[in-house]
């Protein structure tokens, strides 16, 4: 067993873990934070995406021991006392989620994307989230949600989220 020390959503945590324990299970089972999901066993779907020191990473392919000394952000850490994170607001406004299973991972991936590129084009967004699968939305509205969040974070004019279903 290994003793590890890390931060999750700003809170110091310690854990005694088997070397083989996956980070996603540390988060879900040991810490009972179930917003981080598991959708595959091959690092393909991105449902388990979290931020490690600000970088998006798939928690199903990282060992818990690798989190030692790291600062992890999960979906539970996005909202603050002031309210929802712009990406959360964007997902709701633009109807960018249906079943909600891929949503936490998709949002965390988008947070890093916007951190690096505050005003991405549609193509940059599509490539930027291509490591995260969504089976429900067809991605159109996820693109809009990320544009919305980017605009909000830059203080720019918000794009329309009205359905173009005319």
């Amino acid at each position, binding site marked *: 067993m290994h003793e590890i020390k890390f931060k999750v959503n700003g809170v110091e945590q310690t854990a005694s873990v088997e070397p083989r324990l996956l980070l996603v299970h540390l988060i879900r089972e040991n810490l009972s934070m179930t917003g981080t999901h598991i*959708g595959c066993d*091959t690092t393909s779907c991105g449902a388990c995406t979290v931020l490690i020191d600000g970088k998006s990473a798939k928690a199903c392919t990282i060992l818990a021991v690798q989190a030692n000394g790291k600062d992890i952000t999960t979906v539970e850490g996005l909202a603050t006392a002031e309210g929802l994170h712009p990406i959360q607001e964007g997902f709701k406004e633009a109807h960018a989620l249906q079943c909600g*299973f891929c949503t936490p991972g998709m949002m965390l991936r988008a947070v890093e994307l916007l951190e690096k590129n505050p005003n991405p084009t549609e193509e940059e967004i599509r490539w930027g989230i291509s490591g995260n699968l969504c089976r429900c939305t067809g991605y159109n509205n996820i693109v809009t949600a990320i544009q919305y969040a980017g605009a909000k974070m830059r203080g720019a004019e918000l794009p329309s989220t009205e359905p173009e279903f005319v």
Partner: protein
Amino acid sequence: MIKCKTSKAIGGMGHSVKRKEDARFIQGKGNYVDDVKLPGMLYMDIVRSPYAYAKIKNIDASKALEIPGVVAVVTGKDLEKYNLHWMPTLMSDTQMVLPTDTVMYQAQEVAAVIATSRYIARDGKEAVMVDYEPMTPLMDAHKALDADAPLMRPDKEGQTNNHIWHWEVGDKEATDKVFADADVVVKEHMYIPRIHVASIETCGCVANYNKVENHLTMYMTTQAPHAIRTVIALVAGHVGLTEEKIRVISPDIGGGFGGKVPVYPGYVIAIAVSFLTGAPIKWIEDRSENLQADSFARDYHIDVEMAGTKDGKIQATRFKVLADHGYTDASANPSKFPTGLFSIGTGSYDYGTAFMEADAVYTNKPPGGVAYRCSFRVTEAVHAIERITDIFAKEVNKDPAQLRFENFIKKEDFPWKSPTGWEYDSGDYEAGLKKAMDAVEYDKLRIEQAEKRKKGKLMGIGISTFTEVVGAGPSKDFDILGIKMFDSAEIRVHPTGKAIARFGTKSQGQGHETTYAQIVAEELGIPYEHVQIEEGDTDTAPYGLGTYASRSTPTAGAAAAVAARKLRDKAKKIAAYLLEVSEEDLEWEPGKFFVKGAPDKAKTIQEIVFAAYTNHPPGMEAGFEATHYYDPPNLTFPSGAYICVVDIDNETFEIKVRRFVAIDDCGNIINPMIVQGQVHGGLTQGIAPAMYEELIYDEQGNILNGTFMDYLVPTAVESPSWETGHTITPSPHHPIGAKGVGESPTVGAPPAIANAIVDALSVYGVTHMDIPITPYKIWKKLKEMGKI
């Protein structure tokens, strides 16, 4: 523009109100089955067969049982003692829970390991030693009826070959005659391959049997919790687990698409083990297990023919299907429909003669025949008719849009009786196609295409004008295991005018918590925000058959409207009493009754409901609640006109979907934002089988792409930016004039894409390609044709 009868604050039909369920999902507070954690819970993992067809000579669990934390290893022989080693399928066939002697497909469940953690369960699984004697599997449906084919189901009395059933509909003699006399006959063989719904959440459960109370609580990923409760009672009644002792809870579901309708062996093993140990048992599939062993969709070999005149009038169609069902018929169809609703395949066209037949066979593939976001085999049928219509257009040298206009059923001809027995409720196919052609600028595209062709560039335009059939279904024809396919709503309005409504369906992302609230808001004028929606708990929700086949709005949505109208009738009586007028003097506007000619003399719905608890009229029952079980008089027939534009690279044959315009008609629209979202998602599950997805097996029965590394679910990069729109032709028989919509795009998109690709390749003389159409398949085809 969609006209709304209610204010935005009430948020009835037609308003794009934001979803109520989103708050928990965007904050990581959804409650999916793997989030359920109970005290003393044990974990189950499943040993699976590496062979497609083999005798089990021995199962040695001793090494597994030596691992600290492994509690038990369960085999078919163990279940046999309780007569739980086989279970019925929804199509009245039988399926192994765990095998006692033979495995019938690769990845079949062979034994279950129960342990104190999921890691130890996996260790135990690796340590179980199974001695197999492999046999040569039957993987080709075309060889299933050969004299030397191995007999797949010797366990079934009287089963002497691998034929499951024969089905037919239509007038064979009349059809043969039209074909014999026709100017033009076109035919094509089409294979609609085996694919998998691959919802991002896999399947799983927590079975919690309480020995003291003799009570089972089953948390599971199911689209039909009530039906599952009844099935469990039918299977386990003999061990004392009767229906009132079973509670099925379907928590938040991470996508269903049909894959969460069947009962999988894992669920049954978990129940059996919880029953025997008294501990809660959690079983969660991993992705590879999900792709390799859960029910598949499609796998239809179709010969389709069309007869017509040389000036392009369709006169008849003939379909012959060979259906590969794997080792058991575990389809999820209504009982009387072995091919599902395949007989919708005569399409949107006005002709009176058709004949369809199908034969199903057993092979060494996993069981199934579930939907992939479609109303029971409609996708296979629509693909065949929309492709053969294009082939016919080419043969008679007509533009495929023009040929469709000339053959459409006219809007004034509805209700329209199809040659295979359906009565289409309503439609305006011409308006839809016109709108799609205007949006895409069809004529300009054809000019551009002609110019590109001169320069040797490959560009294609494909059309699909499909008719769907959803909302199963009228009780005279539709049942599952004898239970009629009605659905239900129960509305309770509290004294302060806020409501809770419960349903027999179960959302898996469709947004029922919002749209059902909007239906109640529309009918009662209570703001949608004050209508709480609950589904998925069989202890509290009224009985219903669940959510699949786009049936929620056609059935439970209708039930909500009818139940709300019962309440409005009661409200009218109370209002008349309060205002001291007769009921005939009252008029309704959303949210209140007022006296005709004196609009100031009014009672709001909130005042009326309060009175139902505090001051109800003498002789009237107190309270304000209603339940309705809605038995639809007919199915609903949504339709769509889709146009796809592709560019294909001349050298790599990479296919780029440049534009995709989808005009859907689902009748009256409850929430345009949600309908559009459904269409986007459905279209993406349309491009998926058209260009990317297929489960591939080799001759030994090995699945060659059973993980997300190689089963290609489209990402945001493969998915085009969808362009959507609508026409509205209300369903005349549905209480709110709505039709289903969630699956239309999955049904309608693949032939539009295939037609576009074939149109691009028609310069080489290509007339058909089977889906998924990939650059490699194009290269291979052109090579075979000697064109490159």
